[in-house]
């Protein structure tokens, strides 16, 4: 009986030490929840959520200060993923923060640009290139489409252009079951 108690005490001590040691040794750096939320957010950095970027919004969600449905670029899929991660109820996108739009990139009219650098200062991902009093240009592959550069431009030379569909980024459509095969035929006939 006594030995059994000793064994149990010994075991408890050993396990306690092990746990204590591993909690120190394998301490997780940073706040993993914020990073996991941030990984879901689209990184457009547009601020439509009411925070100055995706990371601040992620931090706010993690601390319970913001709702999960405030990011229009993330769309419905984004809200679902967040709800999944946090184990909360899905709710539709809050349209107060804006509606999802097709992905666009900014284009600067190089003939009108006066080189004031205001757009460079606004761009959250350094996608605009140019020096003072020189014309500016957007690096299309880096532009997230956040539209933050549009308002500051004093000569209104920046426009958003939707990304065109090409054979490279084209996607197979969701299958539509043919209900009216006859109509289908008339359309295919028109190609000859």
């Amino acid at each position, binding site marked *: 009986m006594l030995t059994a108690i000793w064994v149990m005490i010994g075991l408890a001590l050993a396990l306690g030490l092990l746990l204590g040691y591993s909690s120190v040794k394998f301490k997780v750096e940073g706040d993993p929840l914020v990073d996991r939320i941030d990984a879901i957010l689209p990184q*457009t950095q547009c601020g439509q959520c009411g925070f100055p970027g995706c990371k601040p919004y992620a931090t706010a969600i993690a601390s319970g200060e913001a709702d999960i449905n405030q990011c229009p670029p993330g769309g419905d899929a984004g809200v679902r993923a967040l709800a999944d991660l946090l184990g909360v109820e899905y709710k539709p996108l809050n349209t107060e923060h804006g509606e999802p739009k097709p992905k666009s990139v900014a284009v600067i009219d190089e003939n*009108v640009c006066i080189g004031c650098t205001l757009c460079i200062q606004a761009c959250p991902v350094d*996608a605009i*290139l140019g*020096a003072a009093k020189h014309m500016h240009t957007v690096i299309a592959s880096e532009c997230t489409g956040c539209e933050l550069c549009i308002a500051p431009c004093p000569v*209104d030379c920046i426009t958003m252009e939707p990304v065109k569909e090409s054979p490279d*980024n084209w996607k197979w459509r969701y*299958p539509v*079951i043919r209900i009216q095969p006859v109509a289908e035929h008339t359309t*295919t006939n028109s190609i000859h």
Partner: protein
Amino acid sequence: MFSLNRIVDLIKQPVHRTEVHLRGGVHPDEHKHESTQQPIMSLPIPHQIVLPLRQHVGHLPKLLVKVGERVKKGQLLAEAEGSISAAIHATTSGTVIAVQDSLIPHPSGLPDQCIVIAADGLDEWVDLHPMDWRQQSPASLIEHLRLSGIVGMGGAAFPTQVKLRTTPKSPVHTLIVNGAECEPYITCDDMLMRERATQIIQGLAIARHIMGVENCIIGIEDNKPEALQAMTEAAAKADFAVQVKVVATMYPSGDARQLIRLLTGIEVPNDKRSTDVGLQCFNVATLLALHRYFDFGEPAVSRIVTMTGRVNEPRNYEVLFGTPMTDLIAASGGALSGVDDYIMGGPMMGFSLPSIHVPVTKASNCIIASAPDLFPPAAEAMPCIRCARCADACPVQLQPQELYWFAKSENIEKAREYHLFDCIECGCCSYVCPSNIPLVQYYRFAKSEAIAQDRAKEAANVARERNEFRLMRIDREKQERAQRHAQKALGSKDSSEQAPAAATNTEDAASKQAAIQAAIERAKAQKAQMKPKNVEDAPTQVKAEIAEIDARREQAKQAVTQSQAQPAAQQASLFDQAPASSDANSADKD
């Protein structure tokens, strides 16, 4: 050369059937005899050649020609860019009359960049340089192949030089030659093997040399006895050992992984490449292209295309890339009445052409003129009854009914878990489904959704990094500025003490003037050298984009200075007006 040992070997290893059988698979009507009645015919040179830059898997090649340039047959028009890419060559001599977006044979039906050549009818080759490949190292041959434009001719169009590369980590011990051609209607490989078996074996010799491989196995389905005989004879004459094996006719035995298993019994794990287990597989037409490139110096300019279905004279044609599909249809006597669609590829894996006004490309192995009596419109799909026939038919042993469920509900993550990307889109499951569910269409949809998601994720990661870098830079600049201010404050104290002393030195006003002048000069030089700060860590692709932008800007600047030289230039006035309009705008916004 042809030693006794070899003969003994050959006798010991006669053509034999494989014992391994395909798992699953289906056997639709073959419809191969229609197009094998006559020999391969060369199509005449068309008036106009339209060469899409996108004819292969991977990066688009870089354009090398300008509109108006005269080109010869075999001339390099666009060179491979990046590790997975293929070159494009002129397929006949003529003049480049346009580089424009045209319709290409792609399921999207979207136009893409094409080089248009008006043929001069002379079909004049560039100087060809055959190569003594036996004397060259594999590495230099692979480097050469980047200029060949050769891609997998089985329809996948994967750049061949990439497949020939071996790494010391995964040496290849066996080459598989794919002559199975399992899909109904398609007969281009069959005819090629019947008519050009020796050339295929010569191509195999090159592939063998490059990869340093001893074993070669040719796999042919048992519905092609003529091709089998021709290949066996050619293989017997080769100066290296080649086995010819017959596999039972069953779709899709021609899929590389399936054929490898049928011929060698080796199962390539689905998360590995075949080279990881020492095997590589080439289509017969690809090998023939290798032979023509190294032994004659000819890059990829043509291929064999099966034109079949509801046309007057189904047949195989040797067609220059870029030839209009309409020429091909016309050559086969035109479409019969009732034809309402054209399918590129086979009936199982092919897709409807968006129009017949598209060119033949490197991937065009077969064109089927389809009519409702050939392929009746699909009956209405019914709910899945979970009969699991699709699972029995799936050669990759997936669970198609589960995949369908996840794809249908757009649960892409779950579909991935169920090995969506192992699906070879063979269509066996759709073929057997009693509920007529277009299963493969769902998988294609789910796959392209998944790919789009991955790309978005990648872009988001880049954006996050750039955003963090920017915040860091702003922080650093702020600190630097603060430091400078602090220093300046100290410095001005010093100079204020020195100032009276300088003032007592009254004589040298001229030297002061010079100092000011020098400062102005310095400022000017600084301005000229001014560089944007946000490109320090840009990847090469972005740097290239920046270079392009700079060039464009230089042009624009020149245009402006030119127009400034003329009075009342429009662009210059735009610049002059800018400050005024800026006021107006900000007023508007407020």
